[in-house]
């Protein structure tokens, strides 16, 4: 495997609110490789989106990165720690939207309603290149064609509200690719879309990844989307990574009780009709009231009193890059 293009090491991002400190991301570490998709999955409040925002250095106050490294290998080959850069400095502005493209969930609120699709694309293209306006417009039409928008030469002059949800999300992907990034971060890119449109967008991202050897971070709550798209998976719960590994191991040999319970509780089109679902007792605690020890212990079927509610579990690496943070595993399992 090639060298990783992005390495996140011990990343912690906390929010310092009046009511207390929210440990939104608490010690995340993972590697991202060209041509591969890393899926970050978890339920509300698990920290998956804050992880993405930390990498892009767009964490809003009162949040800030309190520790860790985000090492990006730049086109020249040198490695830079994004945590050390000023969030609105020239280097970070070149990286954000330049070397790292991003696609968000809500194409309606991420696109301007006052400018045509073309104007927004041309702006993004010229921000990161020296193309003339005319050349940038041609490039914008090329990009629209690349993401599968029919009649791109006409659509370039359309406003976002004139497009359907699926076409808007394709425009978002075109915008993300405008500066030819090597890394694409997609945060719930298909959550607001219908299922047949979701299939189109996932197919599009997979095709662009193949064609351009893109490294993709896919953030979603949907285990089905992860199973379809990811090569490697990080499962998060209340700010902590609980399990990570290759996609097949996560789905077919899940080790952490949270991952196991989560997989069992997903409704499936393959289930017997009217089959009861396995449930996880209780609900996700408020982020300000994160349980001590392992954050999952109050809901965990295997919790060991005196241990799980006291000590934070450390990460244990098993065979095949499979990692767990759970007191059930004190030693690597072959």
């Amino acid at each position, binding site marked *: 495997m090639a060298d990783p293009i992005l390495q996140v090491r011990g990343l912690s991002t906390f929010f310092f609110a009046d009511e207390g400190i929210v440990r939104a991301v608490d010690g995340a570490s993972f590697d991202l490789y060209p041509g591969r998709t890393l899926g970050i999955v978890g339920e509300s409040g698990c920290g998956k989106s804050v992880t993405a925002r930390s990498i892009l250095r767009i964490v809003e106050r009162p949040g800030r990165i309190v520790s860790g490294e985000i090492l990006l290998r730049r086109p020249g080959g040198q490695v830079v720690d994004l945590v050390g850069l000023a969030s609105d400095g020239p280097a970070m502005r070149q990286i954000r939207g330049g070397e790292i493209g991003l696609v968000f969930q809500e194409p309606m609120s991420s696109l301007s309603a006052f400018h045509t699709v073309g104007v927004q694309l041309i702006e993004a293209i010229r921000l990161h290149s020296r193309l003339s306006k005319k050349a940038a417009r041609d490039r914008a039409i090329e990009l629209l064609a690349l993401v599968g928008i029919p009649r791109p030469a006409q659509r370039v002059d359309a406003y976002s509200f004139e497009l*359907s949800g699926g076409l808007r999300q394709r425009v978002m992907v075109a915008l993300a690719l405008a500066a030819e990034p090597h890394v694409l971060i997609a945060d719930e890119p298909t959550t607001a879309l219908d299922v047949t449109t979701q*299939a189109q967008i996932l197919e599009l991202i997979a095709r662009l990844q193949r064609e351009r050897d893109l490294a993709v971070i896919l953030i979603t709550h949907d285990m089905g989307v992860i*199973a379809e798209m990811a090569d490697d998976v990080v499962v998060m719960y209340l700010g902590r990574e609980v399990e990570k590994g290759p996609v097949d191991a996560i789905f077919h040999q899940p080790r952490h009780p949270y991952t196991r319970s989560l997989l069992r509780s*997903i409704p*499936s089109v393959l*289930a*017997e*009709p009217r089959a009861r679902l396995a*449930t996880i007792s209780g609900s996700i605690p408020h982020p300000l009231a994160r349980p001590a020890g392992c954050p999952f212990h109050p809901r965990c079927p295997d919790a060991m009193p005196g241990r799980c509610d006291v000590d934070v579990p450390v990460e244990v690496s098993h065979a095949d890059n499979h990692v767990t943070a759970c007191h059930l595993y004190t030693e690597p399992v072959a």
Partner: protein
Amino acid sequence: MTTPVLEVRHLRKYFPVRRGLLGRVAGHIRAVDGVSFSIAHGETLSLVGESGCGKTTTSRCILRAIAPSAGEILLRDEHGDAIEVASLDRAGLRPLRRRMQMIFQDPFSSLNPRMTISEIIGEPLLVQGMRGTREREARVRDLLELVRLPAAYLNRFPHAFSGGQRQRIGIARALALNPSLIVADEPVSALDVSVQAQIVNLMLDLQDQLGLTYLFVAHDLSVVKHVSHRVAVMYAGRIVETAPTTRLFTSPKHPYTEALLSAVPVPDPRRRAQRIVLEGDVADPSNPPPGCHFHPRCQYATERCRSEIPALREIEPGHAVSCLRAGELSLRGVASGP
């Protein structure tokens, strides 16, 4: 089969599209265009489809949140007496409200933040004439127990509760008046997976326990598989296929159902499916294509499909489909097992 609790016949809802200074009606959005189905006592029928297919408009017509443009909606009570809901005036609607209740999608905006749980659940009882405070409180306690919430929550306000708990409160309120029909519009789609499972199970258990009848409106076919006895698939204002749950999932007869099923991501990386990726977008209900509304996106479409409107025909008992080629196509469903 027993007499249906709900019968919908040729339901239509057209919204006028106005243009120009005088607001001249320039056309109509055919949100619901001739929909018929029935639901038996104790049964769950799911209406599924993508945005704009008319599933929510159908449910809002049945609840009479909006007035249908044409068609009949018959609601029967336990004695078999039917009310024609579609043509009721405002005064006639009030007794109807106790017989049809709704479970909403968003548990955060559907509960009044200034009312306690006891008031929220007790309100429909009060409105329908249960004046005695003690009697009402006893009923509210029973309802909380039914949805498995502790009675200690009675005097708290909604903000103290998680999404799942709020959805339980919404269900308790819907059950307060022993309705003949419960319309649930995307009741679990705003919830996290681990909580969603609890609510799906609760709805199933309550149905078994109380003999409830559900009209379940949803876009998520996986959830639909877990709750439905029968499923009706809508596209551009029409039902294109309806069948018992297992049949619809394993042997779909409409190309749109097939595509919809194949687009659902399956949580198993070893089953990365050969997806049928539909071209283009959902048909525009203000200007639907001629013939079969689905033909521009259908990989099996022939010349006939462009001009001839297919009727919804029963091909087997309980399985109806509106596709001219239903008899000759062999379509792929989702198989269980490895």
